[in-house]
């Protein structure tokens, strides 16, 4: 029987985890029945969620132990509050101690939950610090970005700190989100209601082409699963890519070249035109797009 496709974007955080891991292997920590809801939202009379918008726990992927963090982008934009952040940090700290084969961060977040401003900011910095401890322990961290909110603000930074970033075209990655840019700098700077522009600038294809994401996959939980299980950082526990001085210099050179080549570029369309693919890019499947990058020497 053919497995029915499960859209990563359409699924809830809970459904993503269930479909991503080996069936029945997921054990949630601090689940909804524990009712760890946000005291800050309650104080404001705003609706709370039983899991404060994030699912954490351990399970198996391809038979290997993994620790998973999955944010629910539909609840308050997946934003990080005090409880939410403490759950993410706790899962990472446990990963640093228990050393599973990998940590999977299903990032779906606009960043800090503004209702909880300082607590949220503090949580983001604690998450970053914990992430470094996981990496120091030799455990690779995969960011999977394909939800409705994408990965922005503090969680955009956290995503880029991960060892491998897997995105779908529908996924988005950036620092300030489109609406934040428009609010601060005006609609002339960035029209957040121009969906095509938003995805051209922040979507999976341009992020993959610029090297900010390492894998581009279809909007299918099974495709995300395959991207992780076939990656050398997952299959080969001895494979460490610790940054050497030469490595850092190479990366610096790559970023300098990017800045030089694309200075003043305000739309990915200019980059696609320069590569001779113009408007075809939008119609390419992830497979066709990956082949194009390979042939263009950009993979």
């Amino acid at each position, binding site marked *: 029987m053919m497995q029915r496709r499960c859209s990563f974007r359409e699924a809830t955080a809970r459904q993503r985890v269930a479909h991503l891991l080996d069936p029945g292997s997921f054990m949630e920590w601090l689940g909804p029945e524990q009712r760890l809801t946000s005291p800050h939202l309650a104080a404001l009379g705003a*609706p*709370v969620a*039983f899991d404060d918008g994030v699912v954490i726990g351990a399970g198996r992927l391809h038979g290997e132990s993994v620790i998973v963090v999955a944010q629910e982008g*539909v*609840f308050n934009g997946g934003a990080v509050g005090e409880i939410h952040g403490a759950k993410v940090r706790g899962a990472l700290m446990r990963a640093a101690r228990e050393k599973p084969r990998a940590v999977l961060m299903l990032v779906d977040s606009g960043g800090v939950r503004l209702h909880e401003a300082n607590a949220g900011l503090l949580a983001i910095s604690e998450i970053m610090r914990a992430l470094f401890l996981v990496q120091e322990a030799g455990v690779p961290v995969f960011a999977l970005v394909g939800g409705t909110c994408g990965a922005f603000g503090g969680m955009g930074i956290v995503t880029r700190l991960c060892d491998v970033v897997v995105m779908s075209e529908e996924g988005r990655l950036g620092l300030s989100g489109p609406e934040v840019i428009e609010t601060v700098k005006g609609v002339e700077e960035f029209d957040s209601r121009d969906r095509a522009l938003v995805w051209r600038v922040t979507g999976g294809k341009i992020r993959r082409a610029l090297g900010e994401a390492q894998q581009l996959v279809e909007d299918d939980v099974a495709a995300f699963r395959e991207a992780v299980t076939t990656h050398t950082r997952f299959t080969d526990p001895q494979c460490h890519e610790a940054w050497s001085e030469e490595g850092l210099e190479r990366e610096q050179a790559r970023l300098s070249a990017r800045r030089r080549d694309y200075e003043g570029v305000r739309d990915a369309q200019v980059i696609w035109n320069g590569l001779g693919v113009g408007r075809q890019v939008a119609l390419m499947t992830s497979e066709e797009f990956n082949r194009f990058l390979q042939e263009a020497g950009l993979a």
Partner: protein
Amino acid sequence: MEHPALFGVVASGNLEVLVESGSDKTLCDFEVDTSAHGFAPVWQAVLEDFVTRYPVGGLKFSIHDAGATPAVVHLRLVQAFHSLDSGS
């Protein structure tokens, strides 16, 4: 019931439903936390309708609502009830 079941997400016009084992097999408990005030009779009607259609004795339903319409509330209750069987 081994694990509690959670269905739905708290978002504008939506709700989440947590289903757990209750204390009394002849009763069904509901706990509703909603951001929309003044709709107690509507909730009463939707929940009464739900319990006449499904064998929910011995279950406890806890709800976080962000202004869902009665039809959506009913749908989520049914989905949460069915998710008990599928174990998801």
